[in-house]
């Protein structure tokens, strides 16, 4: 093991903080392929206001819902959603199989800001034109952070809401068997 502190023993300098930190892990397309390789995807209309209200969703909630099919047969759904915590915003993909069971849960994008605002973004455009070669992506901005544990409570709540969305709407509108 090798550990080298980058300051002398004693007080460690606490330098000024950057405004924000962001990492992109996967694109929507990569998540689709990870969950349902070789499938055809079709994006459905976003949940309407009544559905959002019934699910007690936060303002701006607009998950992107895709069906995944192979040769016409439904393989499942891929839902891309965003949750906002006190200082972080997480975009994630939830894959459900044809029976509605969770088959994959991946974080696509993590963004945090201390002192700035991390609002629910009008993010349907967020991934447009974004590729793995994007500067925010792989290898360019690697930061290993050791600090107080991040809570993923908001993400857990977001997943619960999507599972209710499945029960309330996807299951009946897109039955897996006729």
């Amino acid at each position, binding site marked *: *093991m*090798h*550990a*080298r*502190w*980058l*300051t002398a*023993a*004693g*007080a*460690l300098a*606490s*330098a*000024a*903080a*950057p405004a924000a*930190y962001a*990492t992109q*892990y*996967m694109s929507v397309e990569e998540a689709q392929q*990870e969950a349902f390789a070789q499938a055809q995807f079709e994006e459905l209309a976003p949940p309407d206001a009544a559905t959002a209200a019934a699910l007690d969703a936060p303002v701006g909630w607009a998950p992107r819902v895709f069906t995944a099919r192979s040769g016409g047969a439904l393989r499942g759904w891929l839902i891309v959603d965003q949750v906002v915590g*006190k*200082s972080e915003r*997480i975009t*994630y993909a939830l894959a459900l199989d044809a029976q509605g069971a969770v088959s994959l*849960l*991946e*974080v696509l994008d*993590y963004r945090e800001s*201390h*002192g700035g605002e991390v609002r629910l973004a009008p993010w349907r455009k967020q991934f447009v034109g974004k590729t*793995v070669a994007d500067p925010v992506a*792989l*290898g360019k901005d*690697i*930061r*290993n*952070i*050791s*600090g*107080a*544990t*991040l*809570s*993923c409570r908001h*993400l*857990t709540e977001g997943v619960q809401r999507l599972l209710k969305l499945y029960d309330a709407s996807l299951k009946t509108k897109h039955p897996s068997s006729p």
Partner: protein
Amino acid sequence: MNPVLRRARPLLGTLVEMRVEGLREADARAALTQAFAEVGRVHALMSFHAPDSDLSRVHAAHAGAEIEVDARTHEVLTIARLVADLTGGAFDVAVGAALVNAGALPRPRSPFTPDPAARAGDIELLAGNRVRLRRPLWIDVGGIAKGYAVDRAVELLQVRGATQICVNAGGDLRCFGPRAEGVHLRAGDGALPSRPTLELRDAAIATSATQAAGVHRHGATQAEVAPGLCASVAAARCVIADALTKVVLASDARTSARALAHFGAQAARHDPRSGWIRLENAA
């Protein structure tokens, strides 16, 4: 050229991030899937909450019964006992009943009432991965299992042939490979320093903070550890780094230094007034 692959999933109550280099993309994806599954498995085995975890099975049996657990649970309990022995019980996984009483954990299904005097030393670790409670107690490995899960993931990715690896479970991180990795230490909700605080190569670091008052106590003396403190420990294995952060938070300087020296570990402490201070170890 082989890609750098990064993935993050919510596990262990936090975000677990993994990065691998040196594998073909398909192999890297398969290895990461396996490593995330291993983290999930460690969580399922050692959860205080899940009714079918190894710990819940121990709690649901009568004290004195021999319960066979997974080899991984047995190993975590073995390490926990070693750290308890080295620190005069400052770190003690028999803390379950105290955390239940403090409202930090739910009451488990259990036929017995824990003995307030019971300690980690009352967890007998027998051959064949069996566990026996010499006195009634509830085990909570929340202070050590996250680090252990990180170790398991890194070791698995090594076996799969990754040449540079970093696994970070909400600040408990370990890296492997020839390249040194910069690590930014963050205390509490504080801002991220703009430059790395230290660099690691083939090493782990863990950071723990005391949050609510009344929850964090010295395992043997029950003296309360003040909220708002933070400690980081660098060690060869993340499970050791994770456990020693609690020792640094709860113990006097001599006990901390002795435990750090035993494992060849290094530490820093943070409080709101002084900022980060590096600790001397006795070595």
